[in-house]
């Protein structure tokens, strides 16, 4: 990194007076929690053959919300059999137009019960209610609606090919967007005529199980969707099950590689949506106030628990100081705390384990000589919390500039020329996303062409749409989700020998 002269970062001047916010908590009355949740297999909620249950907690309070069944090998086997039977007898040969109607139904029911889902998502995962309400739920419903429309139009999507479903899809999803990831996995799988066995993350199983209830009420043929809860071992049993034809995984690069090895030589189709270390690049001509909002959204959205988070901020040198000042100012106004409060910007860290990982990496940043800034804010006593954090004086070799932190921690580096920005942005084994902030349209396209990333946002960040394909380059995985391109991983084609 070029050595540049700069003043020691100082705490921003406090503006007087500091206004206190009134609390604006969302009521949890709308959620009817059960004490115990079974597995969703063959259209019914059933007790696990394993006989085991685990607790899911609210990470903002550490209170137990419910007990959830832990699917053992026998349970996974039953779920896969149910999916196989449903695929062959009730789903594969159903006309696309009819398959579509079930998906439209699910989309509509998600819209109808959006508030309930949003509150439950926030309770189980810790994300701010304004995000689960305004992002997760609308996008999940939209995803089902979008893919519903594809179910009877698949022949138009792939010129000169005849699409066929693969069979049973085993799908393992993470805890950062629990319902939305379930939608990303199930909607294209079902639209293309596959049956699914979905394994939600162990810290956030509740909205997927509520989705199971919706699926039941939608009268989707039994067994087309099966939901098996549990931890890594359950996921492993799903992906390695010999009767699963296709595996879709979203999660860490480390686990993605393990799955890749486990599937070697099996002939199963695989898509991986893995980690990231995205560069968010701000040029000096960018509208700085807008860029500050984008940078904040890029890294603090969902507590930074986002695989495509803009965790490396690259700032063109002349803009460094003004941008840093504005960022520190903005951080001071971010509200950290009760995720159910409608004013909360940063909610709870999803789990104690994740909090420890963030703390460990942040400590390495300090130890390796980067300079840390955190705003003053009072954190709740119970629950898992981490202040929004900035690091300056970061070099590319620091762990905080190389490793995915998956928390509200931003590493700031600088550059002089567009070519240097490209080189630094691409200097990572990841390649999921990137951001560019500039007033110049031609520069956006010049940068976008050179970035080794599956998604490039210009003058925006962390924006998603069911029509827009999403997925990584390099070690961020392969395959796309969303859009027309999100159909391909769930289809076989005449003439394909596999």
């Amino acid at each position, binding site marked *: 990194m070029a050595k540049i002269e700069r003043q020691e970062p100082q705490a921003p001047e406090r503006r007087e007076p500091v206004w206190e916010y009134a609390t604006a908590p969302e009521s949890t009355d709308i959620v009817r929690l059960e004490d115990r949740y079974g597995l969703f297999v063959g259209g019914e909620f059933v007790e696990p053959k394993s006989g085991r249950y685990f607790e899911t907690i609210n990470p903002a309070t550490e209170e137990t919300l419910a007990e959830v069944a832990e699917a053992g090998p026998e349970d996974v086997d039953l779920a896969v059999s149910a999916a196989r039977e449903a695929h062959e007898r009730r789903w594969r040969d159903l006309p696309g137009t009819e398959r579509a109607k079930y998906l439209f139904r699910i989309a509509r029911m998600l819209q109808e019960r959006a508030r309930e889902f949003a509150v439950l998502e926030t309770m189980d995962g810790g994300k701010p209610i304004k995000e689960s309400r305004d992002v997760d739920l609308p996008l999940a419903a939209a995803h089902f609606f979008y893919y519903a429309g594809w179910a009877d139009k698949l022949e138009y999507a792939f010129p000169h090919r005849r699409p066929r479903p693969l069979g049973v899809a085993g799908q393992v999803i993470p805890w950062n967007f629990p319902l939305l990831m379930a939608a990303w996995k199930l909607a294209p799988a079902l639209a293309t005529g596959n049956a699914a066995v979905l394994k939600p993350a162990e810290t956030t199983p509740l909205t997927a199980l509520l989705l199971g209830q919706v699926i039941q009420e939608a009268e989707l043929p039994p067994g087309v969707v099966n939901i098996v809860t549990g931890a890594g071992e359950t996921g492993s049993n799903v992906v390695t099950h010999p009767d699963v034809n296709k595996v879709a995984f979203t999660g860490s690069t480390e686990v993605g590689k393990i799955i890749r090895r486990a599937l070697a030589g099996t002939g199963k189709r695989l898509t991986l949506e893995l980690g990231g270390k995205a560069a968010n690049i701000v040029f000096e001509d960018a509208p700085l106030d807008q860029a500050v909002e984008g940078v904040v959204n890029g890294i603090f959205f969902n507590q930074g628990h986002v695989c495509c988070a803009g965790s490396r901020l690259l700032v063109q040198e002349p803009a460094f100081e003004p941008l840093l000042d504005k960022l520190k100012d903005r951080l001071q106004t971010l509200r950290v705390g009760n995720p159910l409060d409608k004013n909360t910007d940063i909610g709870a860290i999803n789990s104690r384990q994740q909090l420890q990982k963030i703390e460990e990496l942040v400590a390495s940043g300090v130890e390796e000589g980067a300079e840390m800034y955190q705003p003053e804010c009072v954190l709740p006593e119970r629950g898992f919390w981490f202040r929004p954090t900035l690091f300056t004086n970061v070099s590319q070799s620091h762990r905080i500039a190389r490793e995915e932190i998956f928390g509200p921690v931003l590493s700031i580096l600088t550059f002089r020329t567009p070519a240097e920005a490209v080189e630094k942005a691409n200097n990572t084994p990841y390649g999921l996303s990137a951001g560019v902030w500039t007033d110049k349209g031609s520069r*956006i396209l010049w940068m976008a062409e050179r970035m080794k990333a599956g998604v490039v946002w210009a003058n925006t960040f962390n924006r998603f749409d069911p029509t827009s394909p999403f997925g990584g380059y390099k070690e961020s995985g392969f395959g796309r989700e969303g859009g027309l391109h999100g159909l391909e991983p769930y289809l076989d084609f005449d003439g394909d020998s596999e």
Partner: protein
Amino acid sequence: MTERVPVRRTAKLFIGGEFPRSESGRSYEIFGEDGRVLAWAARASRKDLREAVRAARAAQPGWAAKTAYNRGQILYRVAELMEGRRAQFEAELADAGAADQAWGVNAAIDRWVWYAGWCDKVHQVLGATNPVAGPYFNFTIPEPTGMVGIVAPPDQPLLGLVSRLAPAIVSGNTAVVLASERAPLPAVSLAEVLATSDVPGGVVNVLTGFTKELVPWLAGHMDVNAIDVTGVPEDMRAEVESLSAENVKRVTRAKAADPFSPEAQSPYEITALMEFKTVWHPMGA
């Protein structure tokens, strides 16, 4: 009258536009169908493979930066030059035991012409613009994945190789090819064609040698983005796919087992070695 002594060719490797022998000094006998020794081919080592990967990586940005029209013309020229040397290719296929060597050469030349024409069309046919809910122009374009390792099928030493190589480099990827171990001479001749047909040095690198020795190094190499395992022996597939996990390589193989079948050429073979990139471009007055 003394009979003229013909000049024999040394079958060498093709790395970075040059024709070195193996740094290991090794070579191996190539037999014809009739059991006669046709030549001694270079037996590439791990080090040769790494040199080839380095050359391919260095050549990749320049090759991808050429206009699609330009790449199309260059690949068309490969077909032109093959046509001029068809007698040699036919003789090599006959030596390797091909049933109909003329057919094999015709199909290989036509395959270059077919793929050359895709250079400036694949983005139009398989890219997309996406109607997102917001003030953005959102589009998805396929881009070359980077540097591709190709294990050519052992049979059909010419058409099998061209059917895997052409779709890989059409889009701007560069390649390291492991030629058919048993019948590498058509691949050596193809390298000589590529060297004289405006394909920049390093875009295609051809190694001859022992497949089982070289494949694991190719599959495990951290700077190889994708591997085409069409020619990987069945008993090595699991090992190769496992090694590919190290840097999350894309693994692909021919959709059609027979390169003469109609399915053997497809734009989807091109996109199998491409990445779809989606760009959100702001709109506003």
